[in-house]
């Protein structure tokens, strides 16, 4: 019994849940204030969010009903749950949404939401999904409320840094003009971030405090300067710097401004990620191709972490789990496939998380419950969400621009 329980908790093991065994849920719209296009847009967003929860078999039919009808639509009478909402504009022009969750015609959850502008409707949709998930007693999907920061190349040597919701539907360009890459949240609260400016002679790491608007230079390095990860408490950074043209991983103390070289191999060492306070993983070509290695901070001993994949050039870590990008073909002259894989340092299992296309920028959510990534397949880029415990991937099409780097 104990044995099977511990295995069920290992997310490298695929858990196949039959869709049929999930409770059914239909969504009913009672809005009158807005036009059809907007009503459908909100409905689509809400259905997508309810799907991402992975706890319902969600009906995709758009149906309307007066908000105060005591019973659900006939078409939905066999549904286990019905989510009914009503959007309306108040005197100040704000978007208000009233929501009720019905089970067997009884209201089991009832909430109201409000945003000042209708173009940020997706945050209400995410909030409704978050609340329904809480009501259902499922593990928190706090990550639905977190923001994604990413850089996008708009033309050679010009980029934008953008803040978005987790589906990248809402996009707010926070830095435009110049050549700025590798944005990274500076803290859990997501009210400050680091990025690399490539505009000056030497690549420079900058810090933006979003509360005060202050911008300051942190550190520069000839050749390369990237903030790869920020510790849980925000006090230590893992940097990739290239003193004397040699890319290595460094730790950087935010309070003392002192840095310390962590890797010393005479090739490429990059992409440091905290596994815990004292242990990191990083990408190195010390075996002649890029692969994932780990080491304790301050120690010189290095351990190979991955024994599968011809070229594993990026990774993200969360506790015992590592997600990495593996090149599935190694051809200079044709399309290549890059898939994401998950390993646990405590077992020998490898779980392939994607099957087609170029999948990149994997990032764990703060609680390790989900992985966000970018998928490029058949000339379409999407943002993907992998629900590890539910064995499901969800894709949201990206509007435009090639993502250069992303943090969640």
């Amino acid at each position, binding site marked *: 019994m104990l044995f099977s329980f511990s295995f069920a908790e290992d997310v490298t093991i695929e858990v196949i849940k039959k869709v049929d065994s999930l409770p059914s849920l239909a969504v009913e719209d009672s809005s009158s204030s807005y036009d059809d296009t907007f009503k459908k847009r909100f409905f689509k967003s809400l259905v997508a969010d309810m799907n991402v929860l992975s706890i319902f078999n969600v009906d995709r039919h758009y149906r309307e009903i007066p908000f105060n009808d005591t019973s659900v639509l006939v078409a939905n009478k066999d549904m286990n749950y019905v989510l009914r909402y009503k959007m309306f504009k108040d005197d100040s022009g704000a978007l*208000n949404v009233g929501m009720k969750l019905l089970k067997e015609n*009884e*209201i*089991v*959850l*009832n*909430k*109201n*939401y*409000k945003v000042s502008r209708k173009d*940020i409707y997706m*945050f*209400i949709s*995410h909030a409704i999904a978050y*609340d329904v998930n809480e009501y259902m007693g499922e593990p928190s999907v706090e990550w639905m*409320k977190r923001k994604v920061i990413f850089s996008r190349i708009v033309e*050679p040597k010009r*980029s934008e840094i953008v803040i978005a*919701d987790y589906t990248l539907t809402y996009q*707010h*360009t*926070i*830095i*435009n*003009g*110049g*050549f700025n*890459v*590798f944005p990274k949240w500076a803290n859990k609260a997501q*009210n400050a971030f680091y990025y690399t*400016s*490539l505009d000056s*002679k030497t690549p420079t790491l900058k810090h*933006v405090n*979003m509360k005060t*608007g*202050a*911008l300051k230079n942190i550190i520069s390095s*000839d*050749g*390369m300067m*990237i903030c790869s990860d920020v510790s849980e408490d925000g006090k230590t950074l893992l940097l*990739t710097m*290239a003193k004397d*043209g*040699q*890319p290595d991983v460094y730790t950087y103390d935010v309070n003392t401004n002192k840095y310390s070289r962590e890797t010393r191999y005479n090739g*490429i060492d*990059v*992409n440091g990620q905290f596994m815990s306070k004292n242990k990191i993983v990083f*990408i190195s070509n010390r075996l002649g191709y890029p692969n994932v290695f780990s080491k304790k901070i301050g120690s010189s001993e290095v351990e190979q972490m991955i024994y599968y994949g011809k070229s594993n*050039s*990026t990774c993200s870590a969360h506790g015992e789990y590592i997600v990495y990008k593996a*090149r599935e073909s190694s051809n*200079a002259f044709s399309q*290549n496939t890059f898939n994401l894989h998950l390993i646990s340092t405590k077992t020998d299992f490898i779980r392939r998380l994607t099957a087609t296309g170029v999948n990149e*920028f994997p990032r764990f959510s703060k609680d390790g419950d989900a992985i966000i990534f970018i998928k490029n397949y058949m000339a379409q880029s999407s943002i993907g969400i992998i629900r590890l415990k539910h064995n499901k991937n969800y894709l949201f099409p990206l509007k435009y621009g090639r*993502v*250069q*780097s992303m943090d969640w």
Partner: protein
Amino acid sequence: MKNLMLCGVVATLLVFSGCSSKDPVVDAPTQEVEAPVAQEIQDVATETVSDEESNVDALSMSDLEGQLSSVYFDFDKFDIKSDMQEKISASATIAKTTANTFSVKLEGNCDEWGSDEYNFALGLKRANAVKKALVAEGIDASRVAMVSYGESNPTCSEKTKDCWAKNRRVDFKLLP
């Protein structure tokens, strides 16, 4: 001159409070979801160089830059190919003679197969290989700066092998 415009800031996007109940509630309190607040952040300090001087320098600099050939690399490699050595020697001669008052900036670039730190590092190792070759030709190492642009500075955007080969390169730039 760099023109960095910081557009604004998304502050706290959501505040979740509100109340929920398993019983029907007629007037549930409204939960205020905060809108993103745009704030302006400090402008980046810039320096204006005297126009007269920079015009003269810019002309001769760009002329000289045109004579420095880019160095191309094989897929996933950063060693200098034998056919590229000649180009580097020619560039070194220019850097030692007509361009000897300028610093040299080496910009490392990669093809699109990889868009992560490793690709940036590959671009840098390419720049560093060219730097070492220049130093071997007698250029003072302190005159040479390096930067990697990874896959972010392509000269060619088609999806062909010739195009990818053009992007695996190190460009020479001159700095005053």
